[in-house]
Structure formats: C-alpha cells, structure tokens
C-alpha cells in the first residue's frame, strides 16, 4: 500500500512545527525537541518544505509517487521504492549527491543533507519510528495527514 | 399583573382625526372606517374615540364620562360629584354588547357644572376647579376613572380593536364636528380601559403614536406643576403639557408646539436675531417639556384639531384637505378610505403642525403673536 503525507492547504497555517518535529524525529533525540535542537551537532535538515506565499501555505514533502521520477532518474540506484511500506527511500550510503533526483522531482521534495558529503534526503514517513510521521502527528491544525492510496491515488 | 398606572406600558398605535372647519356636525361612521383601515397597527388591547359637538343640547355642561370597576367606586364617586358639582343629568352611557369587548366596567356619564358656592370659595378658575375635581376622583377613589370631562365632547374608549369599541359604544348614534380615533398596540394585557386613548383633560383630548423617551423628565416636570400622572402614559403627559403651556402659561399654540418639538440649535442659529433670542429662551426655560423620541399626536379641543409629529419624524403622519374638512391619519389609506380624492394630500415634515382649527374660533386658541419658526 502506497502511503504519503497529504496536506490541506486551507488548514496549513505556516507555523513550521512540521519542520521542527521532522528535524527532531530524524535527529539523535527523536522524542525530545529541546535536545534535538540544543544537543545534536548534526541536526538534520527538515524533509518537509513549507511553501508560503501571502496567506497561502502548505507543507510539502515527498509525494511517494506511483511512478517516481527520482527513482527512475537516480544515477546510482540509491533511490528505490520500499514496496512493503509503500514509500520511496534513499540509500544514503549509496547516494553520491549528484542531485539528478532533485532535477527530476516535479515537487521539489528532495533536498541535500548538511555536511561534507551531502546526500539526497526526503520524507521517509519516519520509517524508523512507530506510528504516524512526526509532521502529521504534530501538526497543530491537522493540515497534514497520512494517506494510504491505491494505484490511482 | 400590574395595571397601567402602577407600571409604565409602552405602546405603538394608529391615529386618525377628522374635523369640519365650519363646526358642522357629521356622523362617526367616517372616523370608524378610517381607523379600521389601519387594523394591523393595533393589537386589540386598546381603542378609542373622541368626538366634539356631540352633546349640543347640554353643550354648556361638563360631560363627565366615568368608568367604575365596582359599585362601591360608583357610590363613592357619585357622592363626591354631588358634593362638588351641580348635576343636570346623568345615566349609564348606552352600549351594545360585543363579544370582543370584555371586562366591561360600569360606564356612566354626568352633565354637570361646578357647585357655585364651592367654586366661589376657592380662588381657582372654573376650569382649574373642574380639573382638580377630576384629578381627585382619579387619584383618590379606587376603581373610578374619568375618561373625559370637557364640555360638549366625550371620549369613548375600551380594551379592544377600535372598530369593536365603536360598535360597543354605539358611536353611529353620535354626530360631531371633530372626531379623532386611536388603535392601540400596548405591550401588556389584559389592559386597562383607562389606559386606552384618547386621553383627555377638560377640553383637551389627545391620541398619540410612539414612545416618548423623555417621559421620565417630562413627568417630573409636570409633577412639579401639580399634575398627577396617574396613568404613567405618554399621552397623559402630553395632554398635561398642553394644558400647562396653553391654558396655564397662556403661550401661543405655535410656541407650545415648538416647545414639544423644539427647533434644533443649528436651526435657531440660522434665525433672525429676535427670533433667535426668543427660541433660545424658550428652549432654556421649557427644556423639560421637550418631547424626545418618536411621536405623532393629534390634539383635539373645542377649537379644532392639531396634529404633529416629532422633530425628526420618526412616526408617520399624513394630512389631507377636502372642502371644509381636514383629515389626518397614520396612513394615507386611512384617509382615502373615507375621502378617496381629497383636494390636497401631504405628509407634514417633522415638527411641522397640521392645523384644523375651527374658522370661527381660530383667534381664541392662537391669539398671541406667532413666532416664526423654520420647519
């Protein structure tokens, strides 16, 4: 089953708490915002992009496309679909940071990581954690939801 | 439920009036039809009429119309009347039973003159004497109420729709030169007959539409001058104000009207110098007599009829002329119901009086110099 985080534009208030909790969830202290921001020297970049223009905003993350351009374009095979979880994943060990995926992704949902040898990072639906993605779980206005979609979705 | 007099009851209304300027009498049919046309403006909790010239044979006697809520009240009242008046004639006012008119009190009338000896004893004028007697009845005798007490006139009022009230009082049997009517929309029930319009005092009869926001101030001013506002109605206060200003203070009627619906200060500013001084003084002295809030009133007297509304015209009033007749009503249709094609129909402006004064008596009511006023 393909799954992804969907947003409700009319409910997104641009607070960027999704980013805060995304960073936290992928940090060394996944359950502790304070420590994630104060103690983790390699604090990751958020995997969700808050798009904002005037009153309109939405938190965009990987659409986990049915026909993922990023996977097909990946020069190294580092990007792939995890069929069990229905999510597009990056093998960060394998990624060389050529950004072909970035140039291929129609959503602009992939970004480089921090660090010396940056690699592509993208929403992984918080696969390392149980339950729902951190952005969804912490969106104060329920603008983000985890959607399970069939082939057409 | 407290009855009117213990509690102030706001009400809305319909008003109508007809006068023949030559003083020729005519039947009550027209006024009944006119007020009935505005049925929706009242709610069946008050209707009344006043007619002038209805008692030609006894025109020199004060015609006292009385409501009695108990035999005892009548007993006490008649004892008092016999004491202070010489009664020429008396008896129950003829009525016709009407299913929609209920809680009927005893309704009597007395044609009387002040007892000459008693009048002589006191320093009051005859009118003052009569007025005081009437007030004493209303104030001191529980269950008795003087509905009217002027000469050659009478008020006929009840709790009900005006057309039912007319039927009840057999008004079709009367003829007068001036008729006025009222349909009441009070915010109470079962209603008290005394609270219905017209309200009268001596020769004055007043019907009124609207609620005077300044009532509390007007009333305390009147009380200072010895009036007892026993009914706590706007109409009562308006009637007393007229009596005070015209009868007691002998002010010209136009000035009196200008006190009740005073010119705005910016209007006074634009007057020529002497008028400016005069009106400034009038407003300063008679400020407590200003009627503030929405009203349209018809004032009847043996001199004729005057109608007016408040200075920013918050209530409707339409007037018409046809031959010797002057008509006023809350709605034009009420006039056209009885006079389909008058020579002139107009809506007076706010504070602009409509005069329907009898031709032979005009001088007597407005005999002082009239001070010009921009309306």
């Amino acid at each position, binding site marked *: 089953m393909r799954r992804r985080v969907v947003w409700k534009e009319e*409910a997104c*208030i641009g*607070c960027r708490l999704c980013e805060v909790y995304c960073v936290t969830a992928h940090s060394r202290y996944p359950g502790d915002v*304070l420590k994630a*921001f104060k103690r983790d020297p390699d604090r990751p970049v958020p995997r969700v992009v808050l798009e904002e223009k005037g009153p309109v905003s939405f938190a965009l993350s990987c659409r986990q496309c049915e026909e993922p351009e990023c996977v097909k374009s990946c020069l190294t095979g580092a990007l792939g679909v995890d069929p069990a979880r229905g999510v597009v994943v990056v093998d960060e060990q394998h990624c060389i940071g050529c950004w072909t995926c970035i140039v291929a992704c129609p959503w602009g949902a992939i970004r480089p990581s921090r660090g010396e040898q940056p690699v592509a990072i993208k929403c992984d639906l918080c696969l390392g954690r149980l339950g729902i993605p951190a952005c969804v779980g912490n969106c104060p206005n329920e603008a983000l939801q985890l959607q399970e979609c069939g082939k057409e979705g | 439920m407290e009855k009117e007099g213990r509690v102030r009851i706001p009400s809305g209304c319909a008003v109508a009036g007809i006068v023949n300027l030559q003083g020729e009498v005519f039947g009550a049919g027209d006024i009944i039809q006119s007020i009935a046309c505005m049925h*929706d403006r009242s709610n069946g909790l008050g209707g009344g009429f006043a007619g002038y010239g209805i008692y030609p044979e006894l025109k020199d006697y004060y015609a006292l119309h009385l409501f009695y809520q108990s035999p005892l009240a009548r007993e006490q009242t008649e004892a008092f009347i016999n004491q202070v008046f010489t009664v020429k004639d008396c008896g129950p006012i003829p009525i016709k039973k009407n299913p929609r008119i209920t809680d009927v009190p005893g309704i009597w009338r007395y044609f009387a003159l002040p007892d000459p000896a008693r009048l002589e004893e006191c320093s009051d004028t005859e009118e003052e004497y009569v007025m005081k007697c009437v007030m004493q009845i209303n104030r001191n005798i529980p269950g008795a109420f003087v509905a009217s007490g002027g000469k050659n006139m009478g008020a006929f009022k009840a709790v009900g729709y005006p057309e039912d009230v007319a039927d009840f009082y057999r008004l079709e049997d009367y003829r007068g030169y001036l008729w006025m009517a009222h349909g009441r929309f009070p915010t*109470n029930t079962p209603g008290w007959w005394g609270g219905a319009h017209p309200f009268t005092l001596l020769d004055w009869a007043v019907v009124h539409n609207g609620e005077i926001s300044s009532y509390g101030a007007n009333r305390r001013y009147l009380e200072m001058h010895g009036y007892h506002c026993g009914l706590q109605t706007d109409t009562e206060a308006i009637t007393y104000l007229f009596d005070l200003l015209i009868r007691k203070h002998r002010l010209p009627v136009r000035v009196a009207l200008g006190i009740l619906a005073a010119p705005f200060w910016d209007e006074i500013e634009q007057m020529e110098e002497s008028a400016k001084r005069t009106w400034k003084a009038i407003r300063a002295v008679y400020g407590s007599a200003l009627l503030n809030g929405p009203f349209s009133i018809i004032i009847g007297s043996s001199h004729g009829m005057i109608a007016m509304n408040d200075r920013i015209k918050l209530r409707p009033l339409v007037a018409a002329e046809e031959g010797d007749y002057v008509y006023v009503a809350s709605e034009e249709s009420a006039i056209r119901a009885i006079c389909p094609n008058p020579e002139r129909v107009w809506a007076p402006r706010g504070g602009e009086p409509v005069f329907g004064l009898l031709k032979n008596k005009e001088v007597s009511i407005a005999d002082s110099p009239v001070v010009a006023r921009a309306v």
Partner: protein
Amino acid sequence: MAISMRTAPYRVHRDPDRCIQCQVCVRQCANGVHRWDDEEAEVVSEDRECVNCHRCVVYCPTGALTISRSPLDYAANANWRKPDIDQIYLQSETGGTLLTGMGNNRPYPVYWDHLLLNASQVTNPSIDPLREPVELKTLLGRKPDSLELKKGTLAEPVPPQLELEVPVMFSAMSFGSISLNAQKALARAAIDLGIYWNCGEGGLHPEMDPYTGRVIVQVASGRFGVNMDYLNAGAAIEIKIGQGAKPGIGGHLPGEKVGPEVSVTRMIPVGSDAISPAPHHDIYSIEDLRQLIYSLKEATEYRKPVGVKIAAVHNVAAIASGSVRAGADYLAIDGFRGGTGAAPLRIRDNVGIPIELALAAVDSRLRAEGIRNQVSLVVAGSIRNSADVVKAIALGADAVYIGTAALISLGCHMCQKCYRGKCNWGIATTDAYLSKRLNPEIGARRAANLIQAWKHEIKEMLGGMGINAIESLRGNRLALRGVNLTSRELDILQVKAAGE
C-alpha cells in the same frame, strides 16, 4: 510625535534555555510581539503589543514562553484604578471612543452563581440517564393556545417550529465579526448536534450553502445580504433589534475587515464600512416591528418561524410582550454580559441588565398576560456551562444561545481584542492568513464535544431532579433556590431562598 504615557499591560518571558530559535512564535503572533533579530541572530520579544492571547505560549514546541500581567501599577488608590487612568491616557492621546470586544468584564453579580438546583431524595426517585431516557428535544416556535382535532387528527397544522435535540444554539455571529472557518465550525457542529446556528447580520457566504439546513438567518438594520435566497435559506428568520453587549448601539464592521469574501456576503464593495445602526429605520415603534415581522412572513409564505432578538434592558418585559403580540414566534433575549466583536467600552460595561433577572421578568410577565405559550424564549448573554443552561430553563427559557462559550471551545482565549481583526486564533478575523488557523473540522469537533458534554450533564441534572423530559423543567422555579440574594432579587426571580 509626543510620547505615549501608556505602558505595556503584559510581559512576555522567554526562557533562553528552552528557546530553540525555531521562530514558530514569530509566525504565530499577528501583533508582532516576537521577531527575529538579524543582528543578534535570535528571536526577541517586545511586550507592548502583547494581548495575552496565549497563541505563542500554546504553540511553542519547547514551552519556552510565558506571559504575565505587568507588575507596573500606579500609586495605590481604591478610586482611581489602573484602567481608569490608562483609559484617560488613551482618550487624551486619540480622542477616540473606547472600543473593546467580548462581553462585560466588570464585577457585576452573576445570578447563576446564586441559584442552586434541586435533587430527588426518598420521596421521588432520581433517574439515571445512562440507562433510562431523559429527553431534551425542544421545539421553538409559536404554539396555539389549544388544539382543534377533527376525527382525531389536527384540524389545522401547528405553526412552523424549530426542532432542537439539545436546548442550546449557537448565537448570531456574522462572517466578518468571525471568520468563515469559525462559522463553518459552528455550522457543522450544529448539524451534527441537531441544533441551529445563526449567521448573524452579515449575510450568507456561498461556502455556507451546505449548512443552510440548520441556519437561522438574521435581518438587522443594515439589511446586509438580505434577499429572497437568504430568507429562503433560513430555517428561521431572526430580526435583530438589539444585542446584550451593546443595547441601543448598532454594528459597525470597519472597512478594513471588508475583504473580498466579506464583500460577497454583505453585498457591498471591498473596503467600505458595513454599518448597521442601532435602529432599523423602518422600526420606530412596536407596530413597525409587527410590520417587518409580517413582511418577512409574507415573503416566505408563513413557512418558517420569525423571531426577534432584543437586548435585556429595563423594560424588557414590556418589550417582550409587545414583540409577542407583534407576531414574533420566538424571542431571543440577550443579557448585558453577552459578547460582541466590537462594542464601545462604556456601553458594554454600563448598559443593560443581567439576563437572569430579565428572563425571570419576561417569563413571569408573559405568563401573567397568558401569552407565554405563544412564543418560545431563547436567552443568551454569558451562558457558561450546562448548569447555567439548566437554571435558565428552570427560570423559564425554552433554550439558550451560546456565543462566547462556543468561541472558547474553538480556541478563543478571551483577550477581548476581537475588534482589531487580528485574532491569533483565527476566530475574530477575516484575514485569510489568520482565518486558516481555525480548521473547521477541528472546530466542529470541539464545539460538538462541548455540547455533547453539556447534553449529558444536563441529563444528569434533570435525572437528579427526577425529571426525564426537559419541558418539565421549563419555568419550574421550584427547582431553584437562591443563596446570598436580597429578598427583592428573590421576588424578581420568583425563587425561594435556600432553606425555604
């Protein structure tokens, strides 16, 4: 510009050990209290504009923020208190009429808190609402004095009625005074609950079409958005004469709140003031009210109840009586503690009377006149909880309107700055950026939860009194006892003192 003598009423405290510089507070404060300082490379806060709405506090992911009342005060003076002095400074600086939002916040007595409810013991049983039926269904509308039956069926239909599952409705709040999302939230909740919402005097936005089945449409002096579609959309029509927060004062939606969406609803151009003066200029007397009531009935062919909303003022009983006689099918009476989007402070704090006394007077008066059956009474003006509802019904109401309580359920923090249009909670604003903050789905859920909770509490209180149908409580003042009230107040309330 001369210096202002006014000082910040609140203080914002930021714990540097907890602040992670995420700037969520910066983005959440429409008043500009928090900002990112480039030079210092950190978030800084300025107290002056803080209205103590708690938005930043609630949203801070690390709990780094708190707000407190400024400790700064003037020399102790029981007569000249801080607000008295501050308001003089403000008026001397601006020359303006003082404007505020929400309801009266002065310490006038709250009579609800002096009324206590009865419960069954021994002589009759209480009822357990968890297992036995306790009915709250309420019908609002004119009822005939008696029924005429022909062959066991109705000879004439009963006049139109509103059917409520709980005797609580959402009171009139226009789009403009509140956001469209706030209106949607209440509308959805009303539909879920089987009650009604009231669109206020601002017209109906096209997006509200799905919720018109349970809307009461208001006709106020400005006649905004009133046309046949609007009148036909309403389950009932309410003529707004007055509002408890500002009796005798009209509504005035400033032009800056008239954005494109409000413009559509009010049917006026963007940016122009939306003025609803105190009087309907076609109602200057009671028969004029009748005229408007019947014009609405005539236009909608007598198919829906037409109600009248008035503020509780001195002669409320007489006005109520007159309105019933003028044809009102229900009367909404709004007490002086009722809320508002904007009201002149002096009016809000000094005009009108408490709803408890007004309700008692009106119900008694209508009964004395024998016309109580002809009308339904809905009361409003700071109904805060289910006990207030029960007490109101025992005093004689058929149902209550809630406004402030409903808004609090949506997130209102009672900062009383609604008139600014910059509500950080997305409620009292038409700003698209701020309005989004209220997700109508969440709002609807919260509002519905509140009423569901009240519903159960009401049933428990009724059950405790051994009553299993709400009509048995209506006007049942024996269910009430007063504490700490003067005998005059008890007389007006027609309630016995506790112990009697």
